[in-house]
């Protein structure tokens, strides 16, 4: 029973849990319930990854209607891997959020907070798993609406304008995706991604398809905050409640990157996107500019959350850079970095949230002397910060290593050098904060305040991520294996897809076969 | 074209005529209260005539019931809306033409 429905469960579990969390009403109950559900979703996605690694691909026809008529869920190594990271972070953040939320969100809204969190989780899982282009839009909107709500729950009034800006940008992005999907549908008559991939190539030179591709790319770029379209991200991350920032920074943009990967590799095909349209160069240029511009911006901010938000935009540059290299190793570097960056940023924002919990604001000057007052929090911050910089024995090093290797493989010396130079900026912006924490004295005005370490409920999830930062930095087998099979899988489907074009109508038969199988089972 | 069709056409054209005259009244009358008068009265008569014409086209089924429902609904809501709007305009301080003309000031006492 469980194996049969493994693909759909990570979506519907939080989806059904969300209204229940609202009905529970009391803060403590909905917290416990949400954490439990998220933990279950994590276990399920672990199973799902194992199944995907052994069986290749799991297809699930919702409603029993065979694709392309019904909605198909498709799990492969790639999205199972990202899903694992998302559910893991979600569970840890939920554990962490109990105290953090008590401080930052007013009591009447607590159960609404957990409901919105579960909705966001359901939306993100849906985006990852679905194999239907329009269904993706629906889940994108579920997660986005929940995100706007989560961002606006903070007590500072600036979160409202940040959330509004996010809402306008996000809706424009979603509408662009809707336009793009519509154009594709117009030319192909189908919405199923696999089926789309088949039929798009029949109209290779079509201007309509190319416009659709462009609109989907721009829409997704808004959602993932690619460089010139990132303006919504820093205010949203800065003013959202800390737990929300920790969750969003390590999941939402990653999921958007996955959507981009999925559209490029399994729908349009790399030949079309990179060779015919020349998107590779555009993406690479934007990524490099993002790394430099936003790393620089991060060094001049005074609010630590803003620093980390700009750093996130820069890290998105690394992600996009990897996939713009168009090679198995480049894609693998991106996949690894999706996972690793989730670990780093999750830990960093949790540490910052802990500081906010005790100190009440997170300017760099407020970090002065915290190394003594909150040793565990600041140690976590330091290790995760080193990981961002890319110091060996941390996951950050692994990501950079694979990225540089992938660049060198293609003789892109300049790109490899730029990646390394980008790290120097990270040294500066992380260094400023660590310097304040350890080498500056606690200001006199604060010495009377009772600043002490936060409770274990906040420390444990933070340290789980920190230890994961080190563990996966040393034992890279799990991440590299999963990322490798994910990216090989993506390239394989891509080449399969290109072969099918030669053979013409093969998929029609394939689809019919699948349908027959389902009827008999 | 049988008898019902002819009656129906006549009603339809009459309804359209009243609709037009209301629309013209919307522009040609001098103040708001006369304009709303023109609009609301013709609105009602046009609705009666046009829906009456369509009623003759049906063969006493669900559509007839729906048309009757629409007609009743419009009969109730359209004058109500006009009345409430005029009242609201009056409370909001809008004056009739007679009141705005200085020489008629003494005549404007309510």
């Amino acid at each position, binding site marked *: 029973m469980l194996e049969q429905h493994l693909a759909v469960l990570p979506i519907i579990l939080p989806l059904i849990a969300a209204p229940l969390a609202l009905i529970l009403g009391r803060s403590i109950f909905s917290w416990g319930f949400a954490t439990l559900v998220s933990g279950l979703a994590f276990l399920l996605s672990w199973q799902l990854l194992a199944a995907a690694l052994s069986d290749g691909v799991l297809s699930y026809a919702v409603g029993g209607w065979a694709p392309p008529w019904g909605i198909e869920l498709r799990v492969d190594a790639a999205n199972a891997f990202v899903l694992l990271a998302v559910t893991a972070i979600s569970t840890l953040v939920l554990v962490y959020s109990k105290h953090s939320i008590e401080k930052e969100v007013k009591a009447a809204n607590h159960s609404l907070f957990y409901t919105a969190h579960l909705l966001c989780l359901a939306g993100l899982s849906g985006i990852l798993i679905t194999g239907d282009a*329009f269904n993706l839009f629906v889940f994108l909107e579920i997660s986005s*609406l929940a995100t706007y709500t989560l961002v606006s729950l903070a007590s500072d009034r600036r979160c409202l304008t940040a959330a509004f800006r996010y*809402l306008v940008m996000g*809706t*424009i992005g979603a509408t662009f995706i809707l336009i793009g999907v519509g154009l594709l549908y117009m030319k192909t008559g189908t919405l199923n991604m696999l089926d789309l991939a088949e039929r798009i190539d029949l109209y290779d030179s079509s201007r309509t398809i190319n416009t659709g591709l462009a609109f989907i790319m721009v829409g997704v770029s808004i959602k993932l905050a690619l460089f010139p379209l990132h303006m919504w991200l820093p205010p949203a991350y800065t003013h959202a409640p800390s737990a929300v920032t920790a969750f969003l920074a390590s999941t939402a943009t990653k999921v958007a990157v996955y959507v981009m990967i999925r559209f490029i590799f399994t729908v349009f095909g790399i030949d079309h996107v990179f060779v015919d349209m020349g998107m590779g160069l555009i993406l690479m240029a934007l990524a490099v500019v993002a790394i430099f511009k936003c790393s620089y911006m991060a060094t001049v901010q005074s609010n630590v959350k803003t620093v980390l938000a700009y750093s996130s935009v820069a890290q998105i540059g690394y992600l996009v850079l990897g996939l713009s290299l168009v090679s198995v190793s480049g894609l693998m570097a991106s996949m690894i970095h999706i996972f690793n960056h989730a670990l780093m940023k999750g830990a960093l924002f949790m540490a910052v949230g802990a500081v906010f919990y005790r100190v009440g604001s997170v300017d760099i000057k407020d970090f002065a002397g915290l190394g003594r007052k909150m040793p565990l929090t600041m140690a976590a911050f330091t290790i995760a910060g080193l990981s961002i910089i890319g110091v060996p024995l941390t996951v950050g090093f692994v990501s950079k290593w694979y990225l540089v290797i992938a660049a060198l493989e293609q003789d892109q010396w300049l790109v490899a050098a730029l990646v390394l130079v980008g790290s120097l900026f990270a040294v500066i912006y992380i260094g400023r904060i660590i310097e304040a924490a350890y080498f500056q004295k606690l200001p006199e005005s604060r010495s009377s305040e009772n600043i002490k370490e936060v409770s274990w409920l906040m420390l444990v999830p933070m340290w789980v991520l920190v230890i994961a930062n080190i563990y996966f930095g040393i034992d890279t087998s799990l991440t590299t294996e999963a990322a490798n099979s994910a990216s090989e899988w993506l390239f394989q489907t891509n080449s399969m897809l290109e072969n099918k074009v030669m053979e013409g109508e093969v998929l029609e038969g394939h689809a019919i076969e699948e349908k027959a199988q389902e009827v008999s089972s | 074209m049988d008898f019902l069709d002819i009656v129906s056409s006549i009603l339809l054209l009459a309804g359209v005529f009243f609709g037009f005259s209301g629309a013209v009244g919307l522009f040609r009358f001098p103040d708001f209260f006369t304009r709303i008068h023109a609009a609301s009265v013709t609105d009602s008569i046009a609705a009666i005539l046009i829906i009456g014409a369509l009623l003759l086209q049906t063969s006493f089924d669900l559509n007839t019931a729906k048309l009757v429902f629409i007609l009743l609904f419009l009969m109730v809501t359209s004058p109500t809306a006009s009345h409430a709007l005029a009242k609201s305009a009056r409370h909001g301080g809008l004056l009739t033409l007679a009141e705005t003309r200085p020489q008629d000031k003494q005549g404007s006492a309510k």
Partner: protein
Amino acid sequence: MSFILDYYNYWVVVFLMMAGFYIVISANNLVKKIVGLNIFQTSVFMLYISMGKVSGGTAPIVVEGVTQYSNPLPHVLILTAIVVGVATTAVGLALIVRIKRAYGTVEENEFDNKDDVI
């Protein structure tokens, strides 16, 4: 001429979309931004519905003696999208109400001045 007849619908729809998009990105008042967003989305819906139309077809509800129906799939997609649109509008307007309470204005440049922009 047939070229125009084939495409005029799409062109007007594109114009409408861009009018809405322009309002979103140029308006300074937040309520107007939301209105623009709605116009933008509604026009995209028209794009979808236009492609579902079959000349000479009729609405996809089975009637005796009709064989040519318009495509029901875009209708289904747009029903969903309309709901998504109104959900976004509601949340956006709620944010505007809160912004008015917090800042006393709903003009973008005015509340920007009231906070130090990050």
